[in-house]
């Protein structure tokens, strides 16, 4: 019994080599432990298994085209055999970037408000509504985007374009409203509850004594938050943002419905984009009828998975750095 509970767990049997040596309750305990360990192992191996399955299915296109062409070519024309992922990869990054830019500041401010400023009653009143926001299905977010965000952008884009159009980022050439900005705004609202929930929890976990010491030295509440509480909670806050990021990154339906789905590298937040998940979801129907198309789409799923894993690893390294530095 090598685990840490060994201190309280009676060690009244030796490791047997077969089940029959362990009759009765200890035997049941041992068997249950083995079964649960196997289930855990299978679940842990799921990510490599998914990656392997997608890699095997996308091998045909990886063999037929050089990787550089696949990743950096901007022509996507399955019928002519041209499969360039670049517009889709940049589309994903644009939409997620806009979403995080919009979502992170208000989410963190709300989390700080709930954790540091709000009374217990206010917090108890607001928290259920934030949980409610987390439960709304993505397709409903999409419907909301189509009914509200897209018309709003369609109406306001020309005036913003006329005012700030000299910056390429705000050029408004797309009259439809289905755009990077629409996808980003819808995603931002989807990400709010995830960041708020985790960030609030880690901020509240900061020991009360630190706050009291800071306040006793004459610091204001906001100074206490920025100079004492937040530095202490930083690893957890980064983790909260990363969780929101990975949710936004792979979101399919809500984005697909509002982002316009044009296979071109976007140059402005008012341009249409075509993120990777939307590409996969939109074309699965005809992928078996065009040669290499199915391999190309499952390759897109593989790229998406690898990008999520890479961001996960990077954030973990950052976290380790941050926690070690303190």
């Amino acid at each position: 019994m090598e685990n840490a509970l060994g201190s309280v767990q009676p060690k009244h049997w030796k490791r047997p080599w077969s089940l029959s040596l362990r009759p009765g309750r200890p035997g049941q305990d041992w068997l249950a432990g083995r079964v649960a360990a196997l289930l855990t192992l299978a679940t842990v191996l799921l990510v490599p298994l998914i990656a392997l399955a997608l890699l095997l299915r996308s091998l045909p296109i990886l063999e037929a085209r050089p990787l550089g062409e696949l990743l950096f070519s901007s022509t996507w024309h399955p019928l002519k055999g041209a499969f360039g992922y670049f517009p889709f990869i940049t589309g994903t990054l644009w939409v997620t970037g806009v979403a995080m830019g919009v979502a992170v500041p208000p989410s963190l401010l709300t989390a700080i408000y709930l954790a540091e400023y709000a009374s217990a009653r206010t917090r108890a009143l607001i928290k259920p509504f934030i949980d409610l926001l987390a439960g709304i299905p993505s397709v409903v977010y999409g419907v909301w985007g189509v009914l509200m965000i897209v018309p709003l952008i369609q109406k306001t884009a020309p005036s913003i374009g006329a005012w700030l159009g000299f910056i390429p980022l705000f050029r408004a050439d797309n009259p439809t409203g289905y755009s990077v900005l629409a996808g980003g705004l819808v995603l931002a609202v989807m990400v709010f509850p995830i960041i708020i929930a985790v960030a609030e929890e880690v901020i509240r976990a900061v020991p009360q004594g630190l706050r009291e010491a800071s306040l006793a030295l004459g610091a204001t509440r906001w100074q206490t938050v920025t100079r004492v509480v937040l530095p202490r909670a930083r690893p957890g806050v980064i983790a909260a943002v990363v969780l929101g990021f990975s949710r936004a990154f792979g979101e399919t339906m809500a984005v697909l419905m509002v982002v316009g789905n044009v296979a071109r590298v976007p140059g402005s937040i008012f341009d249409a984009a075509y993120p990777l998940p939307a590409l996969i979801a939109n074309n699965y129907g005809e992928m078996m009828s065009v040669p290499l198309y199915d391999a190309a789409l499952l390759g897109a799923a593989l790229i998406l998975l690898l990008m999520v894993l890479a961001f996960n690893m990077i954030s973990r390294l950052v976290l380790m750095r941050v926690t070690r530095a303190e």
Partner: protein
Amino acid sequence: MKKCRVVECFFRVLMIGSTALVLGSLILILGTVVWRGLSALNLAMLTQTPKGGYYLGKEGGILNAIVGSLYLAGGATLLALTISLPIALYLNLYAARSRRGELARLALDVLWGVPSIVYGAFGFTLMVWLGVRASLLGGIIALALLELPIMIRGMDEAIAMIPVALKEASYALGATRLETALKVVVRQTTPALLTAVLLAFGRGIGDAAAVLFTAGYTDRLPDSLFGPAASLPLAVFFQLGTPFPAVQERAYASALVLTVIVLALSLISRRLAGRLNKHVVR
């Protein structure tokens, strides 16, 4: 001192503004869906399957999608539950504070971040290999994979909160880890476990990307595990994609039905969590 007070005031306003923004977007979403959905909702939509020409604006309803979604999410939740509970108990009782446990939690965190469309694509490749067509079973498996990390995380957090003394008391009476898990830990955490299960169910019933490849879509009620099954998110998506305003109105109504199911679930889980705690030691 004056400057401090200005800064303090400024950020206070900013924080309250942010909170209002978050709550306001919830109200906007619910308001939009209820307002646009209610006008198109009628009894026929809830009680009939699509008749001929439904997607051109003729009569029928989305009963196929409602039943299909309940089957899909229900089956997936049962499947995920039978896998998640042993894993959550294992992580806390058998592999507590061990290196194996930490590694497993790390892998589960990674799994949590895998996009649902990737689960769909993975399910699809499995089905191609096995020679199975889009079916209720395929959808259930893909959704179960999606729900698994959500459910395990919820259960793990709940079980980790149990006071050590409670477990030690059980061990001291001579109970094995299995007995402690089933007779003490599960009872103690029933409300929280149920919340985790319903949370995962809510995610499952609302997800479209994982079932898009795996469950297919049909206008009939699902009648076998190996036949295709419709689902509410896809019903919303397909109806919204048609060029007919009358059918798009129905998409809004379908979105309302989905929202009501999900919100009702979250209310029920709140109520049940309050009631099922009679075995909880405090």
